[in-house]
């Protein structure tokens, strides 16, 4: 179908609209509007100015209690109101349980404190018979547990949150499919499974916008569908909402009318997403990613040995390490993975913990290789009074399919692979010792070459010009030389380098390389490069830094930068 990458995610946002009150009522054991719930009741939090209402039941709301007002003000309206302290910590714990329970609708779920849940329902809706039926199932399940909810499904967490809080109930934000475009001329923008419900709150009726035809390539269709929501749907802080209200911006669509630059200037110092409407808007439209923390974390392979007797000697530690490596390889094999990073933790009897980390150039499941690499890192371990617990954790693992044992002729010679070679050198010589030269986009020789890890793929680069004869080796720092040359810009004839005088027999040049004005200071001078050969045949690459009379310093200096083969 015509769905682009960004909208292929489907996030279900669940808003427990009266979470604290529902939880209190469940604790009391009464149904909605009966028993203790029949009386006006508010949950209060203590503030510096006295108790403030955090949430109120229906009877209290009918009696005039509003969330956020002081309890004393509510008491003047309704003297019989009952005040119960709120329990935010208990609410959060309950929300966490609900988040784990909500994984019945998707592979992972996240908390959305104080009273929301996010579930990833990408590609699972068909298990429930479609997204509308999925939402109905969600409502039914929460109703059974006694929680009042509003839920919505959208491509991003921000959009789902906005629709759950401010959109029509059970709204589904789906990209316009070509068939529906043809059929209706517009699109089924925000479908509400109970579209004609009279009690449908707060605006945002399905709109028939003509912009849907060219929409699916970007997020503009989402922007168009959500433009009627209030700015509070952006999950912003209260003071930011006040600022926006004073600016006269009430709906999401109006944010676009001001111009992005103006808003950016107004909120340029606000880095946190909750304080910056532009960041929130981009998150809502899926232009910037929004990291969500799943409530149940991903399991990493972990093996450990609790030792009956604390060990103090290296030979025993090596044995334990060998056992752990074998366990880890089995663990990884079962998961079809190979380790890229391994953390070895050593718990000492006296409470100290030493952690050694190993990074591998390629995913591996070779126990002997792991033992060998760790063996070099364990030389400086101080065992103290003994090590009682050794734990090996693969904090970074990559898929590595099981492969047949190497039966090629090369393996018969017992040669190691390139990745193992790089690993061994990196372990002993340091992470920056083994590298590969790559070309960089610069004309200055020392800048035109960069270094990257040996096994990284080569970045695309422009091939250098064929007629440039470059030296085989380049000095790390060009060395100053004294040169006899025909002023102001003639050919060099003789030079002294490292205490030795060279008579120049042949010379080619100059090749002029201008300074990179966008990177260097304005006083940087041009370079005239010469390829030279002295009377005994030694070939060098030298340059004159600057030219007489360029106004950027005194007489030009000469440097030797490269050595030809």
């Amino acid at each position, binding site marked *: 179908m015509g769905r682009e990458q960004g909208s292929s995610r489907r996030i279900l946002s669940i808003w427990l609209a009266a979470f604290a009150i529902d939880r209190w009522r469940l604790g009391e054991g009464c149904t909605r509007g009966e028993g203790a719930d029949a009386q006006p009741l508010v949950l209060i939090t203590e503030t510096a100015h006295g108790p403030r209402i955090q949430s109120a039941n229906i009877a209290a709301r009918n009696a005039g209690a509003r969330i956020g007002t002081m309890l004393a003000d509510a008491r003047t309206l309704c003297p019989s109101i009952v005040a119960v302290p709120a329990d935010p910590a208990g609410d959060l714990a309950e929300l966490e349980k609900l988040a784990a329970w909500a994984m019945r609708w998707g592979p992972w779920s996240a908390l959305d404190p104080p009273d929301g849940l996010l579930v990833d329902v990408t590609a699972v809706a068909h298990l429930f018979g479609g997204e509308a039926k999925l939402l109905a199932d969600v409502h039914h399940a929460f109703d059974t547990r006694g929680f009042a909810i509003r839920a919505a499904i959208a491509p991003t967490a921000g959009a789902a949150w906005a629709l759950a809080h401010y959109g029509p109930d059970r709204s589904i934000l789906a990209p316009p499919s070509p068939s529906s475009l043809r059929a209706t001329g517009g699109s089924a923008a925000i479908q509400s499974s109970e579209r004609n419900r009279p009690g449908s709150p707060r605006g945002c009726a399905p709109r028939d916008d003509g912009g849907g035809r060219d929409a699916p390539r970007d997020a503009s269709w989402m922007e168009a569908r959500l433009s009627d929501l209030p700015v509070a749907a952006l999950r912003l802080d209260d003071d930011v909402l006040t600022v926006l209200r004073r600016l006269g911006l009430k709906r999401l669509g109006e944010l676009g009318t001001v111009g992005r630059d103006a808003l950016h200037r107004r909120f340029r110092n606000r880095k946190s997403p909750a304080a910056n409407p532009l960041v929130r808007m981009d998150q809502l439209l899926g232009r910037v990613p929004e990291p969500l923390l799943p409530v149940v974390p991903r399991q990493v392979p972990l093996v450990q040995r609790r030792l009956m007797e604390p060990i103090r000697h290296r030979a025993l530690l090596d044995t334990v390490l060998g056992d752990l490596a074998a366990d880890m390889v089995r663990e990884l094999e079962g998961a079809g993975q190979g380790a890229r990073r391994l953390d070895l933790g050593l718990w000492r009897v006296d409470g100290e913990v030493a952690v050694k980390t190993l990074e591998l150039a390629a995913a591996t499941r070779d126990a002997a290789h792991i033992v060998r690499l760790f063996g070099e890192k364990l030389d400086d371990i101080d065992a103290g009074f003994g090590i009682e617990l050794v734990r090996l954790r693969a904090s970074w693992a990559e898929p590595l399919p099981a492969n047949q044992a190497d039966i090629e*002729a090369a393996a018969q010679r017992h*040669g190691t*692979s390139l990745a193992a070679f790089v690993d061994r050198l990196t372990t002993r010589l340091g992470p920056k010792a083994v*590298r590969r030269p790559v070309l960089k986009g610069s004309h200055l020789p020392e800048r*035109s070459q960069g270094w990257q890890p040996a096994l990284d793929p080569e970045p695309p680069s422009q091939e250098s010009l064929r007629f440039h004869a470059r030296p085989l080796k*380049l000095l*790390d720092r060009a060395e100053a030389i004294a040169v006899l040359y025909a002023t102001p810009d003639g050919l060099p004839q003789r030079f002294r380098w490292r205490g030795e005088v060279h008579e120049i027999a042949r010379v080619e040049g100059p090749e002029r390389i201008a300074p990179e004005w966008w990177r260097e200071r304005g006083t940087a001078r041009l370079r005239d490069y010469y390829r030279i050969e002295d009377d005994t*045949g*030694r070939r060098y690459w030298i340059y004159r830094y600057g030219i007489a009379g360029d106004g950027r310093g005194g007489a030009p200096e000469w440097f030797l930068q490269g050595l030809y083969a």
Partner: protein
Amino acid sequence: MIPDAFDTAADLASVSQAERWRPGLGAVAQSEIFASGCEGSGAGAALALALDAWRSRPRAEGEEVEDRRGVVWVQTRAAVKRGGRPFRPGLPPEIRHRLIHVIAEKDEDALFALEEAVRCRDIAFVIGEIVGSPRALDFTASRRLTLAAERHGIPLTLVRLDGTRDLSSARQRWAVQAAPSARPQWNRQAPGVPAWQAELFRARSHPPGTWRLSEDAGRLVVERGNTPEIRPIPIRRARHRNLVNPKISVRAEPVEALSFTLVGATPEERAALRQAQGER
């Protein structure tokens, strides 16, 4: 299992001692090249010799036509300081994209890296650069490297910058210095393709000698040794030479065919002898 890329002792015994070295004979397990640290000729000649051996390597049955293995260049920090580090635009085109550069702070680390490199099956050849004659590189270490290279069939060329010719088990030992290059055809004032004066002073299967090596169209060629003035080669002849079998066309005539080294001589005697031989 010893691969057949190198000469085994039995092969060596059958090789006629009179056979002179020439390009295209194939790789030896370990060769050493002594050169000055103030010129790039050591690394240049090492690359040229290694590439020549690599090109003339016999292809095994079922092997890929294109050899995609990497090339490892190990340098100590002192060698980088003395002679710089490889510059990719100036490298031979065959190895530009496959060079793996290793920098070692100490000589022991460099020897470790060299040994690990010759043990790796995904590497075509190894080049090492070490300054002087460090204590770590004694005969035992040298022998260790040779055996490892022989066992795994990966040739190792060790460039010794400003080193003394101490005891070593390298199969070929060269002393290389830059030689005036041939004049290019279009700009006779410019430096030409690299040329080296190379002296093979110790070899297991060849008599010693001196050659003038240079690279011609990506091929290592030898010219008459010790010729001060090099006549430019006309295009037609150069083309013709490229077409014929290199083994026939090479005219290797070492000038110092009878140079030799005294095993038991003191350094002073050796220096005097070399002076008498007119060594530069």
